[in-house]
């Protein structure tokens, strides 16, 4: 699925059936293309993004907006911590935990 540049302004319809592998794939795609701006970067799912110096803390806000648009899950900013968002795996766990 091609990445939507900028993303839609409305929240996507909730897709409760989306499996974690798909969620991981879309997060990874977004991070490489939009945040690292290197679509080919071989990002591992357990690779530390913030403490590893790949993205900065300003990107947390962008990830929050993306997660809401792509998965219809609102992550309160108290959840947008380095501990919750440092790897793709941690992000998926945080989204699943927050999802109603």
């Amino acid at each position, binding site marked *: 699925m091609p990445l939507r540049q900028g993303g839609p302004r409305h929240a996507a319809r909730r897709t409760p059936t989306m499996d974690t592998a798909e969620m991981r794939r879309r997060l990874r795609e977004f991070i490489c293309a939009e945040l690292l701006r290197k679509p080919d970067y071989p990002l591992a799912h357990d690779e*530390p993004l913030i403490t590893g110096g790949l993205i900065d803390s300003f990107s947390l806000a962008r990830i929050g907006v993306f997660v809401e648009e792509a998965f219809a899950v609102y992550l309160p900013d108290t959840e947008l911590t380095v501990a919750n968002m440092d790897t793709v795996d941690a992000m998926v766990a945080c989204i699943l935990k927050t999802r109603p």
Partner: protein
Amino acid sequence: MTLRLDYETLVESVIERAGREPRRPALVLVAEDDSEQTLTASQLLESAAAHACALRSVGLGPGDLVILVMRHSRELLSAFWGTLYLGAIPSIFPFLSEKLDPQLYMKQVRTLVAHSGARAVIALPEFIPMLTELLAGVDCRLLDSEHVAAGTGASSPPPSPPVSTEAVAFLQHSSGSTGLQKGVALSHRAVLNQVRSYSRAIALDESDVIVSWLPLYHDMGLIACCVMPIVAGVRLVLISPFHWVREPGVLFRAVQRHGGTLSWLPNFAYNHCARNVRERDLEGVDLRPWRVINCSEPVRYDSHRLFLERFGPAGLRETALGSCYAMAEATFAVTASPVEGPPRVDWIQLPALQAERRAVPAAAEQPGAIPMTSSGTPIEGVEVAVVGDDGRRLPDRRLGEIVVRGDCLFSGYHRRPDLDAKAIRNGWYHTGDIGYRAGDELYVTGRQDDLIIVGGKNVHPNDLEAIANEVPGIHPGRAVAFGVPDGQLGTQAVVMVGELAEETGPEGRRRIESELRRRIARQTEITLADVLLVDARWLLKTSSGKIARGANREKYLRRPR
């Protein structure tokens, strides 16, 4: 209504206001859950006096330097004003973020204490064990911020001792290289002169409400969004910087809730807000009364347009966007754009700027034309000149170093007379910034040295290179860091190019890059936008054998991809 600003010391203003309008709200702190805490003028004075009392009880007195290692909180503000109340000198240390290595951070505190001769450190309770160990044997009191805040108020606080208006009020530590931090010493007189001139330049009024997310260890946060409003009796709403970074919408909600009329934003914040504020954060938000001043890094025309397009529909007016040129050494502001702007935009020819160091006017549609946004005109009591390498003033539209003099300049760098002599010559402070004047307007184009300004923070490339030189696999002494413009983020992106110590395959290169990124992030909080690992002899050197940052930057930008 005209503000009363004829004080001799900063504390005098707080004492006077608490007597005159004790119940007037002085500041509101917005917590991460959007709950709020209001401090009235009398509460601010009481908590400052109580902190002063606690500091005095452990033997501290006028003239003692006190470092504050605390988070953005009521206690931090009380400790800052309490230290001032005692006639001692506060200095706010950047707060530990989740990204930094705590041990390295604590060592930076120790280095600062050792270099500055600080008499006390007030730190959060969780920092006390590690700091106790690190400061063992150092003649410096270590105080738990919670004890200082709680153990006070028992006895009636002492009167604030008389302090000369020429005495140093506080130190602002320049950001960047922590080990070599420069403490910018500011006298009460300089700060009060700045408050007077700058508040006039922006027509600050008692009906204004300043809303800020800026950190208090940075001049824009401390002066424009803490000291000035408190001295002038203008209401202040403070949001935690960490909160705003993660959720920029909090700024707009606070502006709406409190009738905010004024905020300061570094240029990158325009982009951050425009890209990451959700539509629902703007529901019911009316930005018509709100003014914003763009300062602390070069003002970008594109960011200005982006911000206006995003928030215009919520009522933001184009004339409400101002600009300012500022530095800690001048307390804060040097120039300001007119109150009902917008700042002037000067289209100039880029080739003439680069080749002849002249800003030649151009038509906007002309090829090679670039827009420069004016930083405004000098505020009262401040003179600005642009000088050539020989120190002589240059005519209008010629590019040179910006120098500043006036009644709000710093007293010198704390314990660094060697730096004073270099920075202040014949009464003029040499900023190291490059720019030009056109009439009274000042345009800032860049830096004389290789300093990189990222999101309003100064980054010294040699600090980053020193870290790279320690990374196994990189040839020591063969790494170079520089900034490149990042239009998407509205600031500079930091790039590192390093020569490999030996031939290295793709897997090895990946490991070296990861290690380099990790170390830079943990030690400096900088995120490298790009890392380029190259073979031996890629980097260009000067005739004296030093690595030429500018030439390598050009080579990086022109490399085939």
